[in-house]
C-alpha cells in the first residue's frame, strides 16, 4: 500500500474521530455544555490527535528503519565471493537497489507481469528480450538478481504490513480516546499538552538544523587542517589554488577584500541611511513618510543579483571611464569601489529602516523636554534624540556590516575574482564568499585541500558575522532600557 494512501486513511480516521468525539460528549452532557470540563471541540481534537500522533510517529520510525533492516537482510543474500575485485559491499548493494528499481519500473509500465518479475531468472530469454525492447535491460549476476528479487519481495511485504499496523494503531488509539471521553475528562489539558509538544518540536528542528550546519562545517574544516597547515591558511598572503597540487591557500587577501569592500559599503550606507532615517522620523510630514518609507524599503526587496547586474553594466564602466582611467588608477571595470558603492546602496534600507524605528522609539517626552528648555529642533535632534538612539543605531550598523561581509553576488559581478592585497580601490579584488563559490563550483574532489578550503573559509565567515551579530544584540540590549 503506498504511503500516501496510508496517510490519507489515517487523516480520515482522525477526522471521523473528531466528529465522533465531539458528538459523543455532546450527547453525554445532555446538551448542557456547562457540565463539560472543556469545550466540545477539545473532545473532538482529543480523539483526532490520539488517532494521528502515534500512527504518524510509527509511520516515520518505520520508514526510517525499513531501508536499514532490508539492506541488512539483502546483504546476507550476497556471498563475499560475489563481490568483484575492487568493489565494496556498498557498491554491490547499490546495484541491487538499481536492479530492483528497474524491475519495479518494468512492472508499472506493464512490460512484464508481477509474477514474471518475482520469478525472473537470468536464462529466461523471452522475458529478458521484452525488457531489452522496452529499454529496461537487466545485465547482472545471478546473485545480484536474486538479491534484487528478495529486496522487492521484502519491500512489498513491509509496505503491506506498514499499512495494516499503522491503520490499526490509529483505530485503536482513536477508539481508546473515544471510550475515555466523558464530561469530566480534562480534554483541554490533554490537547494543550500535545500542542505544546508540537511547538517545542518545531523549535527543536530549527535549533538542530543550526547545530547540524555548524558541525558539518567544523568537521570538514578539521579535515582541511589535516591536509593543510592552519598557520599558512590564516596568515598566508598568497591565494593560488590549483587542483594539480602545490596550491597556496592563504586567506588574508580574501579577508582584506571582504573588509575593504564592506568598509566602502558602510561608508556609503551609514550616512545616507542615517540621514534618511532622521528626515523620515523627525522632519517628514505624515504623508511624505507614508510614501517615502515603503519606497526606500523596496530597495531591500531587490534580489542582490540584480544589484550585481547594475554594478557590472552601469556602475563599473562609469567609474572606469570617468574616474579610474582619467586619474590613471586602473583599467578594470570590476573594482572594490564598484562593489562597495553598489553594496552600500543595497544596505541603505537596512540602516534607514532600523534607525527610523529606533529614533521613533525615543519618547516624545524627551523631545518636549528639550524644546521646552528653549533649544531648537536641530539641537534637540543632535543633543537629545540621537544620543538616546545611539546604541540602537550602532546595532543597526553592525547588522548591516554582517550583511555586507556575507554578500556574494554583488561582489562576483562588481569586484571580480582577483585575490590580491592592494590599497587602490579601483583595482579588482575578491572576497571570501566569492572564493567559496569558486572552490565548490564544478567537479569536486572532497579529499583535496583545494575543495575543503571552502569549508574553512565558510567557518571563518560564520564566526565573523556571528561575532558581529552577538555584539550588535549585546549593545542594543544593554542600552535599550535607558529611557524606559
Amino acid at each position: 500500500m503506498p504511503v500516501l494512501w496510508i496517510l490519507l486513511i489515517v487523516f480520515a480516521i482522525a477526522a471521523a474521530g473528531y466528529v465522533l468525539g465531539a458528538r459523543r460528549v455532546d450527547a453525554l452532557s445532555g446538551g448542557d455544555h456547562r457540565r463539560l470540563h472543556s469545550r466540545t471541540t477539545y473532545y473532538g481534537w482529543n480523539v483526532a490527535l490520539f488517532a494521528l500522533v502515534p500512527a504518524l510517529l510509527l509511520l516515520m520510525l518505520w520508514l526510517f528503519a525499513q531501508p536499514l533492516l532490508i539492506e541488512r537482510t539483502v546483504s546476507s543474500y550476497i556471498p563475499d565471493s560475489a563481490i568483484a575485485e575492487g568493489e565494496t559491499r556498498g557498491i554491490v548493494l547499490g546495484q541491487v537497489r538499481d536492479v530492483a528499481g528497474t524491475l519495479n519500473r518494468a512492472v508499472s509500465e506493464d512490460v512484464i507481469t508481477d509474477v514474471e518479475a518475482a520469478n525472473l531468472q537470468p536464462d529466461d530469454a523471452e522475458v529478458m528480450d521484452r525488457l531489452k525492447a522496452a529499454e529496461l535491460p537487466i545485465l547482472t549476476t545471478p546473485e545480484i538478481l536474486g538479491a534484487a528479487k528478495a529486496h522487492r519481495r521484502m519491500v512489498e511485504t513491509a509496505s503491506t504490513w506498514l499499512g495494516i499496523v499503522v491503520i490499526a494503531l490509529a483505530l485503536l488509539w482513536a477508539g481508546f480516546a473515544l471510550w475515555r471521553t466523558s464530561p469530566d475528562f480534562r480534554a483541554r489539558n490533554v490537547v494543550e499538552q500535545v500542542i505544546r509538544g508540537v511547538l517545542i518540536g518545531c523549535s527543536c528542528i530549527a535549533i538542530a538544523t543550526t547545530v547540524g550546519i555548524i558541525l558539518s562545517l567544523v568537521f570538514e574544516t578539521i579535515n582541511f587542517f589535516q591536509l593543510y597547515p592552519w598557520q599558512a591558511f590564516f596568515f598566508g598572503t598568497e591565494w593560488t589554488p590549483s587542483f594539480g597540487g602545490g596550491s597556496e591557500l592563504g586567506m588574508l587577501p580574501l579577508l582584506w577584500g571582504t573588509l575593504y569592500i564592506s568598509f566602502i559599503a558602510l561608508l556609503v550606507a551609514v550616512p545616507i541611511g542615517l540621514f534618511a532615517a532622521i528626515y523620515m522620523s523627525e522632519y517628514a510630514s505624515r504623508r511624505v513618510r507614508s510614501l517615502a518609507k515603503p519606497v526606500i524599503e523596496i530597495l531591500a526587496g531587490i534580489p542582490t543579483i540584480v544589484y550585481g547586474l547594475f554594478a557590472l553594466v552601469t556602475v563599473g564602466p562609469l567609474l572606469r571611464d570617468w574616474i579610474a582611467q582619467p586619474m590613471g588608477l586602473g583599467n578594470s571595470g570590476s573594482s572594490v569601489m564598484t562593489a562597495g558603492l553598489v553594496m552600500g546602496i543595497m544596505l541603505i534600507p537596512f540602516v534607514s529602516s532600523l534607525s527610523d524605528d529606533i529614533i521613533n522609539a525615543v519618547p516624545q517626552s524627551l523631545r518636549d523636554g528639550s524644546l521646552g528648555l528653549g533649544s531648537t529642533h536641530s539641537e534637540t535632534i543632535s543633543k537629545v534624540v540621537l544620543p538616546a538612539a545611539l546604541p540602537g543605531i550602532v546595532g543597526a550598523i553592525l547588522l548591516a556590516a554582517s550583511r555586507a561581509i556575507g554578500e556574494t553576488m554583488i561582489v562576483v559581478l562588481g569586484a571580480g575574482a582577483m585575490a590580491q592585497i592592494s590599497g587602490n580601490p579601483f583595482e579588482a579584488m575578491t572576497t571570501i564568499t566569492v572564493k567559496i563559490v569558486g572552490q565548490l563550483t564544478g567537479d569536486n574532489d572532497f579529499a583535496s585541500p583545494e575543495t575543503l578550503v571552502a569549508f574553512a573559509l565558510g567557518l571563518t565567515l560564520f564566526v565573523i558575522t556571528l561575532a558581529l551579530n552577538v555584539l550588535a544584540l549585546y549593545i542594543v540590549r544593554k542600552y535599550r532600557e535607558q529611557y524606559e
Partner: protein
Amino acid sequence: MDSAHLTERTMQTMADDIKVQARNVQVFYGDKQAIKDVDVDILDKTVTAFIGPSGCGKSTFLRCINRMNDTIPVARVEGQILLDGEDIYDRRVDPVPLRARVGMVFQKPNPFPKSIYDNVAYGPRIHGLSRNRAELDGIVEQALRGAALWDEVKDRLSEPGTGLSGGQQQRLCIARAVATAPEVLLMDEPCSALDPIATSQVEELIDQLRQDYSVVIVTHSMQQAARVSQKTAFFHLGNLVEYGDTDDIFTRPQDPRTESYISGRIG
C-alpha cells in the same frame, strides 16, 4: 498656613505686577475647539494654579504660554498672549528664545539619558549662559540647590539622571528648567507620577521658587492647589469659569460650577 498666606497675599497685591496677560485666547485642534475665549492675568512672583476636570483645557492653555502647542501640527491658537506686554504669538517672535524665558516641567519626569550634571547643564550650554567650566559648575550647583536635590546627588553628578527615583527625577527636571534662568515656570501636573513624600518635597520647592519666578501649575488635586498657590483659575469645558485668590475660590466660589467642582459634585 493661613496667617502666613494672608500676609503674603497682601504683599502680593502691593507689588501687583502682571507677568502674562491672555486676551481672547482660543485654541483649536483641527475642527475641535479646546479653549474658548480665555482672558487671564498671571502675576509675577506668584504661584497660579489651574484646576478643573480632565479634558477641560487647562493643560492646553498652559502649553500656549510657551508655544509648546506649535509642536502639534493640527493645533491652532487665536487671540493674544502678552509676556511683559509683548505678544508672543506675534509673527516676529521666535518660539525658541521664548521657551528659554518660559520654562516648562512636564507631567512625567523626563530626564535625558545623560548624566545628572549634563541634564542640568543642557539649557545653560545651549544658551551660552557660562563662559567657562567653573561658571557652569556654579550654575548647576545653584540649580540643584534650588531644586532641593543638591545634597542627594552632589557625590554622583556623573551618574545617569535616569537612575534616580521618580521624585528625584522630577526635581532634576525642575533644576534643569531653573538652570536656564526662566522668568516664568510652567508645571503640567508635576506631581501626578509621584508618591506623597516626593509630592510634598516638590510642593515645598514650588513655594520657594515663588521668590524668583512666576509659577503656573496645572493640578488635579484641589488640596495641592490650595496648598501651593495664591491664585487659582478654574477651567470647565474649555472656558475659564472663575479666577481669583485661591482662598476665595475655595471658600467663597462665585460660580455654581466652581462650587460643584470643589465640593466634588462634578469632575
